[in-house]
């Protein structure tokens, strides 16, 4: 009877976007009378932080504080087209569309400011706090609120922009399999350290280390949350998610998803996560997508750690106590 420790590695690459059928997303942006820039989308933020990241992209492009950006999204009856939230494409596709829309709006914003300040638009810059000012003469400036009011009521103009990201459909060459299915690839290495109880068959993940290369990390705190939340999902796939955790006894088995076994707080290992950056030419400010990949590498890392700990090579998820014990029995016989 012993608790056996082991360490396992897994390394993966993961595509951003999937465009074998063409993959567009669109964005519209307009300024209200008081200088709030509303981004209209139909892209869905299902908790991954898309609204925050595209607001960052718009604020950076406009040269305005993020407080001046409002994201209005997820109504497919009224919003511009979005292919959807899948294939880790949201930040990459929608971010690019929003940057394009914001760049068009910025040009109009500077045009109107040029008329208000009676200067040439090419001599104007944004200061990042809400003002448009003359380069080298910062005292000559106008606040975005006054600018938006002037656009509406003096100049009769909209400050608005249209954006689209579209990767063309990739035809597969039947003879060779040649195709261009994605826009870029993110990379990750996960190391899992486990303890296997050779009497009960229970596997505990003690520590997990994650290194992700995700192009430019537009929001490092949220990217790290994605890495660690995804690792939890991977851990859950690897060790927990079965309708028969107590097989062959069914008495205490889950009968629906509310009783389905998943890791609780006490089952979550210590995690250390590091982000590396190699910006992608095609990404918004260099970002790649990391949505779905974060649940992937923890699973083979845990399987390899179990093998390292006790010599049992498990090929079917989840790695339940029963399967570990059957594997140990097979080794002994």
């Amino acid at each position: 009877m012993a608790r056996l420790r082991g360490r396992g590695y897994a390394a993966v690459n993961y595509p951003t976007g999937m465009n074998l059928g063409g993959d567009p997303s669109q964005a519209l942006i307009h300024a209200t009378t008081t200088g709030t820039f509303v981004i209209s989308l139909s892209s869905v933020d299902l908790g991954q932080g898309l609204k925050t990241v595209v607001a960052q992209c718009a604020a950076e492009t406009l040269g305005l504080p993020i407080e001046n950006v409002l994201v209005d999204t997820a109504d497919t009856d009224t919003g511009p087209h979005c292919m959807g939230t899948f294939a880790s494409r949201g930040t990459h596709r929608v971010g690019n569309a929003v940057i394009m829309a914001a760049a068009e709006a910025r040009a109009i914003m500077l045009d109107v400011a040029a008329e208000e300040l009676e200067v040439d638009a090419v001599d104007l810059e944004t200061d990042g706090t809400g003002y448009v000012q003359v380069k080298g003469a910062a005292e000559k400036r106008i606040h975005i609120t006054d600018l938006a009011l002037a656009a509406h009521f003096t100049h009769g103009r909209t400050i608005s922009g249209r954006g689209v990201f579209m990767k063309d459909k990739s035809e597969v060459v039947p003879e060779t399999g040649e195709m261009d299915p994605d826009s870029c690839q993110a990379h990750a290495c996960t190391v899992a350290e486990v303890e296997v109880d050779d009497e009960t068959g229970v596997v505990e993940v003690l520590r997990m280390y994650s290194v992700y290369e995700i192009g430019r990390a537009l929001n490092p705190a949220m990217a790290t949350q994605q890495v660690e939340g995804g690792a939890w999902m991977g851990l859950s796939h690897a060790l927990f998610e079965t309708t028969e955790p107590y097989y062959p006894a069914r008495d205490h088995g889950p009968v629906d998803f509310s009783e389905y076994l998943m890791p609780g707080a006490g089952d979550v290992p210590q995690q250390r996560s590091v982000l590396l950056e190699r910006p992608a030419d095609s990404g918004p400010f260099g970002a790649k997508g990391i949505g779905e990949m974060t649940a992937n590498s923890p699973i083979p890392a845990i399987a390899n750690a179990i093998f390292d700990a006790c010599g049992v090579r498990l090929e079917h998820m989840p790695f339940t106590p029963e399967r570990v014990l059957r594997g140990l029995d097979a080794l002994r016989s």
Partner: protein
Amino acid sequence: MDRIARELGIDPLRFRLRNAYRDGDMKAHRKIAEGTALIEVMQKAADLVGHELPDEYRTMSSLEGR
């Protein structure tokens, strides 16, 4: 990867580093790889857990073709 590495008697992480794709490699669907960083994430992971790597593995780079 782990099973092959152990069959060959090679450290699993070194085996992965040796075989990691790099910029300029052609992938299965005949697309030339760019923006790769598989080697670098493994090198950094080795640092985090104190996995010893000889210099020839430390100096590998995704930017340099084989």
